[in-house]
């Protein structure tokens, strides 16, 4: 009998094991849902898969009278727009500030403690301030995402910059590089893969802020819809929406990972 950590599954077994929890959750839901529907056919808490499908088809293909939009696509479009804008602005701010502040010692001494303190402010606590300052429109939602994510990305990029070996920076100087040339030729390219990683790690938080902002005030969006139909206990909308959001998040994460592999082959070689 070996120690348990010394037993590793074969690849085929590994795949089966990976699928198992998903199947188990689905099976448990199905059994519970069937049991409830057998007692009360109009049960709203655990609808059947058929009613999920019917609701989603309705939301995706029938024009909503109030907004004259196909609701599923309209919500998705609004939420993704907010998410991409917020993430994009955060990444840009994080990259520029992180590199400049991380690389120039005087700026680092000035701003590093400030950023450290700033990143501890809970973004949702200042949401009312954002609503007051930027109104209830799109601006305050995007600022919320930036507020929540940019400090994390700045600090991550700064860490990466300071983790560059001193030898490399000295070597660059003995090759005649100016500060700008070191930033553009040595620091930026080596920080980019890390930036993609920190954006990937921020995806969850970004979704959280989008949904929170939409829940409070919005005219549409995935989070808005979920919180709107909550009043009618419309689990047939909420659950597929949650799965849809999860799927979108997964696809974005996957796309970013592929991007890092394609754009920075040297980073993959080094990691391997």
């Amino acid at each position: 009998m070996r120690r348990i950590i010394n037993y590793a599954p074969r690849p085929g077994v590994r795949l089966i094991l990976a699928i198992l929890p998903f199947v188990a959750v689905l099976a448990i839901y199905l059994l519970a849902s069937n049991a409830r529907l057998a007692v009360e056919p109009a049960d709203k808490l655990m609808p059947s898969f058929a009613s999920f499908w019917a609701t989603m088809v309705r939301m995706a293909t029938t024009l909503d009278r109030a907004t004259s939009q196909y609701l599923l696509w309209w919500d998705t479009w609004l939420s993704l727009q907010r998410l991409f804008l917020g993430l994009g602005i955060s990444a840009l701010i994080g990259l520029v500030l992180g590199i400049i502040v991380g690389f120039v010692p005087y700026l680092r001494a000035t701003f590093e403690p400030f950023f450290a303190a700033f990143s501890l402010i809970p973004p949702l606590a200042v949401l009312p301030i954002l609503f007051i300052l930027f109104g209830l429109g799109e601006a305050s939602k995007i600022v919320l995402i930036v507020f929540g994510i940019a400090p994390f990305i700045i600090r991550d990029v700064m860490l990466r910059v300071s983790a560059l070996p001193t030898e490399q920076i000295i070597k660059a100087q003995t090759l005649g590089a100016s500060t700008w040339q070191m930033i553009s030729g040595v620091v930026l390219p080596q920080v980019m893969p890390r930036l993609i990683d920190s954006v990937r790690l921020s995806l969850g938080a970004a979704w959280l802020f989008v949904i929170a902002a939409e829940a409070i005030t919005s005219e549409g969006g995935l989070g808005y819809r979920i919180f709107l139909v909550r009043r009618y206990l419309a689990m047939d909308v909420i659950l597929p929406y949650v799965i849809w959001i999860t799927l979108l998040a997964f696809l974005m994460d996957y796309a970013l990972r592929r991007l890092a592999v394609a754009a920075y082959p040297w980073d993959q070689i080094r990691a391997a």
Partner: protein
Amino acid sequence: MTTIRFENVWKEYDERVVLEQVNLSLDDHEFLVIIGPSGVGKTTLLRMLLSQEQPSRGKILIDGDPIAAEPTADRGVVFQRYSVFPHRTVLGNVMMGPQWAGAPLLGRFFGARRKALEERAMALLARVGLGEHADKYPAQLSGGMQQRLALAQALIMKPKVLLLDEPFGALDPGTRRSMHELVGELWEENRMTIVMVTHDLPEAFLLGTRVIAVDRRRNDPQAPERFGATIVSDFEAKCRSVRDSRLFEAERERVRLTLLGTTDVPADSPPVPALDHSR
């Protein structure tokens, strides 16, 4: 012509004296090797020569002028590790220096200029034995190959002084031997000054023309940081007159062979043409 002078150089961190009274005068085309026990300040000496650190007292002169206060292109360097840029290919690494010098904004050459530089870089890579690895990334190279790359990368800038900080410390003995040969040859070919730090004595006397040992001359057991290290011995490992005469012989032999090769030697020509020896 490159001469290096240390004039009464001290290095202190607060109360701790690392180096004291370092005086050194180095002629052109010397291969200086600094040896000594670990933690005694060999690398600090090299770092000061690189301007990575500043002397607390005294000054360092190259060709009679104080060295710049920051690392510059006249002093090339190869460290034990991390001397190459992981995000550029082997060829890209070698081309970085000239591109930075020639393209301040983009750091990149295009067209004919790029082609010319690529040829120069490829020639240098072939010289250090990396010709067929030009498109690989440094992470795909072995330790010895990475050090060869770092050498080529530094040499393309034609530095006055090449500084080597335990460059072979992380290599296996076989690789180390071939690196010794390469560095020795490059030193002859480029006629530059090399300063190397090592703690391998045979290596020091194999490569160096001059070997200095750095150690503490005085030690206070109650306050071990009271006194710093300095140059305690200074060997002329390879006599300059012997070196020069060997060089001269080699040159004369080369010229004789070329003269033999050409059939139409004028009868009144001197047996050996005047050599261009500026020294």
